[in-house]
């Protein structure tokens, strides 16, 4: 079974970019353009990993990460923040909110899939 990846990202171009790269590598990619629907999709579609933008309309990435962590059934799902937030403490804040990892934007198309794969494998190894 192919791993399902949920992307929560409000920028359509970036969403398309990540979907394209991951889709080409054979992942089953689903996307949400806001936090609320992202959480709903996570609960119903049970992705293997969540890629989360921080700057989202309404409910921001910090709140989404915290909310996802409140559901025990999603406890093992890695949440990777993909964001261009780069000021001091941004990484620490999102990790504190419940994220597993952090990929800085702009993503490198040559290595992005590999990076996501690493987080996925790390989670699988922990789960076994």
């Amino acid at each position, binding site marked *: 079974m192919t791993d399902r990846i949920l992307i929560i990202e409000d*920028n359509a*171009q*970036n969403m*398309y*970019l990540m979907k*394209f*790269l991951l889709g*080409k590598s054979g992942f089953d990619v689903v996307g949400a353009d806001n936090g609320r629907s992202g959480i709903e999709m996570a609960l119903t579609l049970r992705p293997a990993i969540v890629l989360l933008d921080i*700057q989202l309309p309404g409910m921001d990435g910090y709140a989404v990460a915290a909310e996802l962590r409140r559901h025990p059934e999603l406890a093992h799902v890695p949440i990777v923040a993909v964001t*261009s*937030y*780069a*000021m*001091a*403490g941004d990484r620490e804040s999102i990790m504190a909110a419940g994220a597993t990892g952090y990929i800085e*934007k*702009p*993503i*490198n*198309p*040559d290595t*992005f899939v590999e990076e996501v794969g690493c987080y996925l494998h790390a989670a699988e190894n922990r789960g076994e």
Partner: protein
Amino acid sequence: MFRQIADGKVDAGVTNQFFGAVNARRYNLMDTAVVFEPSSLFFATRKGKNRHILVAIDRHLHDLKKNADSIYYRTRKKWTSEELPFRIPTWFIAIASGIFVVLLVSAGGSLLLKRQVNARTFELRQINAEMEQRILARTAELADATEKARAADQVKSAFLATMSHELRTPLNSIIGFTGILLQGLAGPLNDEQRKQLEMVQSSSRHLLLLINDVLDISKIEAGQLQLSWSTFRLRDSIEQITKSMLPLAQKGNLALVVDISEDVGDIESDRRRLEQVILNLVNNAVKFTEHGQVRICVHRESDEYVIRVIDTGIGIRPEDVPQLFTPFHQIDSGITRKREGTGLGLSICLKVLDMLGGTIHVDTEWGRGSTFTVRIPEQRRTQS
């Protein structure tokens, strides 16, 4: 004596002033002014007669003057000692009144002076108080201005950080899609398409560098650059940097020489930031050198490491050296127009090194090359 005068037996008598004044009235005699000042009294006699009497008087006087206890001196003493208290000489009065006047004038003068001094002191006190008031007001104004400037600075830094973030979002898709197209993931490309896409990629990467540098500067200036201290092998860092720079050096036909001394071991620093600094220096050296080599020499001097990046490049004009480490300063010479860069690299290096407790120094000769020397403490120094 008074009776004899009154009876006309003698013409005049000499006596004490008071004794004379009292008795003269009784005998109805006239007194004349007593002359105290030394005056010459003469015994006179008819010419040619009584010469023997005069001689006798002279001899007697002469004898009397020889003897301190003689009647001459006793009389004189008695008279002078009684006379003195009552008869103040005019010259003395004149001098005394002169002195008195002088004293009076000086007393008056000093009183006047004192009044003037008091008035001036009061004035000075007032001026002083006024000055203090003004200084207080100015200090408050200055504090206010400083606060405003700091607030403005923070607004500026926040603005830059936000802008950097906003610029990165669209850049993410530009770099991403260019990469996808170049990888051939969206289908095959012809040579011209590939060439043009590579230009898009190179330009967008340059834009990203610029944004990253602006972000770094704004982070440092906003005091938001957090260092991540760890202990690592300096040799590893240098070798890694060299490896990453090798392709660019080879492209320019340059030799990249690394000379790490035996005593170079562990360092406690921020690995990412220190590597950023060294990479920047090596990158500059390679960019600004057309022939020859770039050497990276590392050795230890007591408790610090000395990292030298030596090139045989174009060098820096002496007049350009002072502005070398200021932001957005790229030396404008014919050859450097060709170079890519943000003009922020060295100013970031300086600031980062400052935070890491290190220093940077340049020795350069126009047309001959430059040596950038970084000194960095082997261990983190706790700031006092």
